[in-house]
């Protein structure tokens, strides 16, 4: 049974809210066991084993990044970074085995207050692809790929996944 547009839209909205509200472990659990999260540097990359990336982690290794977001010594998220994600232009782009490939656009505003110096505010924009599969627990991500429009730029730290 393949999910329809309404179902995948609900999933994407819930996912964005989960990330915005800091439920990173719950979000990490939305990946299938063989799942992975990928943000390639080159928008032309089709094979995640062949090129540089902003993020490229299978679910097991990704757990380190996720755990760190809860550590009291994670300097780059102290004080916490707040984010507001807007997801739109959602389309079912195709199918891959039993997964439904969903294409959408993401805008994410990120902000953090600093006691010393200027506050940090920035915006990310790009295209997301989710490979969603039905499981007994509901929809899960087999993979998620995010291509921000400035992926090839030299960016400063991005501790929050998009």
């Amino acid at each position, binding site marked *: 049974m393949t999910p329809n547009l309404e179902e995948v839209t609900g999933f994407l909205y819930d996912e964005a809210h989960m990330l915005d509200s800091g439920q990173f472990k719950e979000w990490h659990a939305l990946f299938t066991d063989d799942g992975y999260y990928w943000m390639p540097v080159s928008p032309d990359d089709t094979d995640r084993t062949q090129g540089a990336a*902003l*993020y490229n982690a299978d679910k097991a290794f990704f*757990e380190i*990044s996720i*755990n*760190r977001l809860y550590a009291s*010594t994670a300097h780059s998220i102290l004080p916490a970074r707040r984010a507001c994600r807007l997801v739109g232009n959602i389309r079912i782009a195709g199918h891959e085995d039993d997964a439904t490939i969903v294409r959408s656009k993401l805008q994410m505003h990120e902000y953090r207050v600093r006691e010393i110096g200027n506050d940090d505010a920035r915006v990310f924009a790009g295209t997301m692809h989710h490979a969603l599969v039905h499981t007994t627990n509901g929809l899960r991500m087999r993979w998620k790929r995010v291509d921000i429009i400035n992926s090839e730029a030299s*960016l*400063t730290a991005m501790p929050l*996944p998009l």
Partner: protein
Amino acid sequence: MAETVVKQAMADLIRPDAVDRRVYSDPTIFQMEMERLFSRTWTLVGHDSQIPEQGDYFQALVAQKPIFLVRDGDQSIKAFLNACPHRGAPLCNKAKGNARRIVCPYHNWTFKTDGSLIGVPLRSEYDAGVFNLRDHGLASAGQVGIYRGFIFVSPDPATDLLNFLGGMRSAFDDLVDRAPDLEVIAQPTFQRHRYRANWKLIFENLNDSLHLLGAHASAATALEMVKDQDRLDPIMRLSASAPKPEVLQQLVSRFYRYGHSYSAGIHNLGGGGVAAGHPHYDALAAARGKEEADRVFANPRHMSLLYPSATINARMGTVRLVRPIAVDDTEVIAINFRLKGAPDSVFQDLLNYSVVSGSPGSFVLADDIEIFERSQELYRHSDRDWNSVHRGTALTEATDDDAVVANGTSEAYIRNQFSIWSAFMDGSI
């Protein structure tokens, strides 16, 4: 500024074991660094394999000046300022490409890859008695030097490339020797990041074994929290691990005359453990013999710093170019190499390691960047405040050929960086 004044000003900034914080935040000092340090040392800009064919070019930045490197018809590599001699428009506008003839996009002045001007439109409007094409070729960006395929540029070298590299040549030897066919190929997509702080901070950080305990405490905690440890790749696990201080004290650091240094000593920290049965060892032994494989993989070296322009991680097949953009802005560009003749799994390891150690999304890098940026914010407001670089002065140092050998937790390599920094800045080199 009279040279005696400069000498005194520089002497006032650097003490044997302390550094005035204005060296990280004063824009005038930064400009002096461009003129006196970066224009006279050799900057690593890339690798031979990025421009194999005639007309292949890539852009680079040396002492803040935009330049490009191009493969000429005689196979040599030339470096030119990326500005048309006519009205100064940039000639190359893509990061890399191929052009048999270099044509300025503004008024179509046309150059050969050796820099000579071969055509200007409306030639009849030029006074042939005054304007000779030969006098208006591309401006050289300085001398080009090549070591084991790595390309260096110096606008006005204080010494030749081999002498400048000194014992740090071994970092490049180590990288290339790890390729079973003795050839490495630069990958087209670079792993970049940026931090809003002074360029020197990365050079003071990457041989600082002790910062693992403070800056990267969260990575070690996060690693311990992973439930299913068996599923973690050993190379990837390395990126998050933080050894105990007494383990770090077993490290050694070696440093060289022109400010270069590396730390070494504990094989596992550098991602060692490549022995018979490992696909990389076996490929190298098959190509060049067991003895050579043993020699190459016995090298327990971690991060090498080529002051003031690059870092080299031979074990992970990666070279990082450090580009000062402004006094408080630095770009870091990692080039990953495929080792010719090595199995694909070797490339996978180094690529994975590069993502987790050199990408903006890295859980290691994020905390280094954070501490650099927070510090820079304070340095900006500093007036006669001092950074201590005293650690390790209670320990003895030894010399070994052209290197000084110190304890791996010592800040001796930072003192060494500032010793050559002062010599360039006050004009004694």
